[in-house]
């Protein structure tokens, strides 16, 4: 009899332990003044590998200023958007997340998942200017600090390959075609393309489109005010055929390019025995190659995406917007820290980082190429945020769907422009109405 009750008591106790373990965690309380700020701050972003180490150095700088705040960083990788969406749906998001898509940020703002940071607006405008500050706001309310920016209108090349073929970086799209032909004649594959899940090709499309159709039509396309079957889209794709039309232009041919991911495509160029001469990718390229054997300027170099039919200088860029899911003193302090030039300079010194912060000391860029691409972004006549990041994420941010899939299908079948544009339009119709 008694042993039965003992067993029962043990079972109840076990259940109680399980229930306690399942309960949510409690954030550490925060106390008064700025020096006494304590607590835990959790951060998520896409940065992994070398970039993660650099961001953790930035965090270390913060922890020196606020020694009682414990910051933990988790990398979400390319799956950051779904990870965050799930966490929000489950009611358990990180305190801060740095996301690359303003569209996703707007979605979170509408859901009420992220908190406004209007108090920081003045600091942000002082450091970054109105235009960049506005990227981080939705309907006039400030939600984000744009910490890291990337100039996506760049083309990187292998210096030795260019010297072997005797070519110079081109200024116009036509010259780029001639450079590719000459490289091919010299037996060097002109382009190293990593189609990956499709987003590198969306960047290429945006660079071409903003030059062939202009910034106003770019904005219209982003908002789906003109259809994807519009002639301007087809014209841009026809220009891209000069790259993708011939399989011999790409390292490994079209089929290999379709299976190559972005870091591999960059490593193919940044190599002592390069497989390709040029890679069309944003200014973050040097940062994604581990064990880069080449030196800047002597080994690898960069030129601005060339103008097409006399278009003015235009820059397509992206940035990481740091938003606040759960307010706490530690989180607010961290976001404020991110607006300071000192935070940016920590990562700048490590390379592979471009800051939109105007107050950053340009001499901090140890790499003259990085300095060039960073100023290229701020000094371009026209600046637009990366279109696929502005679109609803079902269309502009999902592997295997929408814009990303349209571009991979275009590379696989560069002659089927009508089919690809119709497919894009169908997917856009679904994504934009929801």
């Amino acid at each position, binding site marked *: 009899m008694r042993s039965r009750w003992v067993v029962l008591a043990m079972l109840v106790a076990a259940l109680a332990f399980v229930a306690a373990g399942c309960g949510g965690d409690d954030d550490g309380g925060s106390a008064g003044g700025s020096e006494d700020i304590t607590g835990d701050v959790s951060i998520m972003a896409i940065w992994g590998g070398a970039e993660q180490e650099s961001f953790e150095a930035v965090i270390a700088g913060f922890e020196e200023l606020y020694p009682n705040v414990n910051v933990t960083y988790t990398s979400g990788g390319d799956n950051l958007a779904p990870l965050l969406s799930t966490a929000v749906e489950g009611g358990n998001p990180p305190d801060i997340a740095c996301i690359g898509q303003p569209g996703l940020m707007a979605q979170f703002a509408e859901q009420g998942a992220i908190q406004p940071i209007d108090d920081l607006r003045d600091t942000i405008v002082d450091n970054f200017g109105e235009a960049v500050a506005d990227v981080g706001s939705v309907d006039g309310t400030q939600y984000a600090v744009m910490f890291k920016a990337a100039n996506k209108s760049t083309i990187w090349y292998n210096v030795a390959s260019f010297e072997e073929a005797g070519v110079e970086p081109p200024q116009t799209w036509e010259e780029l075609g001639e450079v590719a032909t000459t490289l*091919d004649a010299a037996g060097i594959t002109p382009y190293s393309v990593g189609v*990956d899940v499709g987003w590198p090709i969306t960047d290429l499309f945006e660079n071409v489109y903003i030059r062939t159709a202009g910034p106003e039509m770019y904005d219209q396309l982003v908002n789906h005010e003109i259809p994807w079957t519009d002639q301007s889209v087809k014209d841009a794709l026809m220009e891209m055929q000069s790259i993708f039309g011939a399989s011999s232009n790409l390292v*490994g*041919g079209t089929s290999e390019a379709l299976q190559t991911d972005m870091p591999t495509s960059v490593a193919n160029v940044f190599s002592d025995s390069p497989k390709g001469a040029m890679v069309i990718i944003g200014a973050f390229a040097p940062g994604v190659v581990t064990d880069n054997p080449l030196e800047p300027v002597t080994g690898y170099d960069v030129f601005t995406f060339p103008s097409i039919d006399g278009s003015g200088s235009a820059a397509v860029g992206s940035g990481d917007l740091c938003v606040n899911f759960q307010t706490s003193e530690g989180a607010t302090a961290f976001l404020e820290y991110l607006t300071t030039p000192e935070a940016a300079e920590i990562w700048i010194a490590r390379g592979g980082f471009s800051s939109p912060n105007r107050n950053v000391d340009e001499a901090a860029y140890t790499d003259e190429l990085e300095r060039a691409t960073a100023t290229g972004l701020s000094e371009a006549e026209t600046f637009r945020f990366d279109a696929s990041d502005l679109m609803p994420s079902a269309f502009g941010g*999902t592997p295997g769907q929408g814009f990303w899939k349209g571009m991979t299908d275009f590379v696989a079948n560069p002659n089927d422009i009508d089919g690809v544009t119709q497919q894009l339009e169908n997917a856009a119709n679904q994504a934009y109405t929801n």
Partner: protein
Amino acid sequence: MSESAATAEAPTRGLPPQDEGPGFFQRYGVTLVFLLPALTLLTVWIVYPTIRTIIRSFYDRSGDDFIGFENYRTLFTDDTLLTAIKNNLLWLLIVPFFVTAIGLVFAVLLERIRFSVAFKIVVFMPMAISLFAAGVIWRLMYEKDPSQGTVNAAIAVVADAVSPSGVLASAQPSTEQVTAASDGALVLERPLEPGGVAQLGLTGIRASDVPDDAVQAVVPEPLAGGITGVVWRDFTPGGGTSGEVGEEELGLPGITVELRSEGGGSRAAQATTEADGTFVFDDVGSGAHQVAIGAATFSEPYAGVSWLGQSLITPAIMMAYVWVWAGFAMVVIAAGLAAIPRDLLEAARTDGATEWQVFRRVTVPLLMPVIAVVFITMLIYVLKVFDIVIAIAPGSVQDDANVIALAMWRTSFGGVNDFGLGAAIAVFLFLLVIPILALNIRRFRREV
């Protein structure tokens, strides 16, 4: 005494027994207490989510509007999802069969040899790693480039032996005067009379690929009664003038040049180029001839099968999956095999049956229950396949390799964020698995 006995034996009709023997809780109380944790967990984590998912599938993306069967209609009209369903059907038809068959073959064959345990361990080892890790391994093995992908490297050994790559695999003509013939050779269009000089400029050759003994190309003097010419790398850094032998342009030695009768066709003679790229055909006779570089010079090195391309991706993933699970099938069937009485097989053999007949008529029917277990288990697992697909398929073909579980994940969490549609897909998958589960349960009941 007798009264209470009487009342105990004949309970009054219509009234619930009061204090009649042990009550419900006393009889089942302990059982309930032991079952309670498991029941709670099951309810919280399986029953409740299932019901909520079914309800959620009738609502739209945001969860606020009731849309009835709209999500299910999307499920059967959307291209992406239809591909996923079609792929899963293929998986269902092909993979369980192959896994069971290969497992059966291994179990039967490995039974009779020495060190059978060692072999069985080797075959079973893939089960020790997660499906995702297996996917990563096979992703690397399926690389198209034969110098990187194991599978293509193995095929390349055979392919290169059959058709070795030519000396100048990537070369292209530098001018329009040299064109590609139907057999792959490069032909100088203009026919030459005796005393003519042929110039065959080639580009697309890396400077480092030119043989070491090459020297500056020269245009040879015409030879009376014969035809001379030069094959050279027609490229100067910066482009140069194509069609003319420029400074620093090297000749290509060791190339086999053919002399063909006019209009292509039969090969009259062959010559090999010298260090400066020149070649000579003495005494060609009258009439015009064409000069060509044979197709064998340009045969490309084996490029590799595109396992991760659109058409082969699903078979490729299936092969990796079979590699992982064949071991499981083998082990289970081997256990069943061990339970078969050997004298039955002996009896069949003495009756004059061949090994194959013994296998087909005696072993397999006796193994049927075990084979059924393996087959049905694989059916269920294949319906849910997810991690190996996401590990192997590169981004550009994830749509072609799509399966229902992956489509559900993408729809709900992978960027589309349409939880209603994702719930509908989950319910659909659930409905697919139910018949197989019912089959399994019926079998269990029958066995008991």
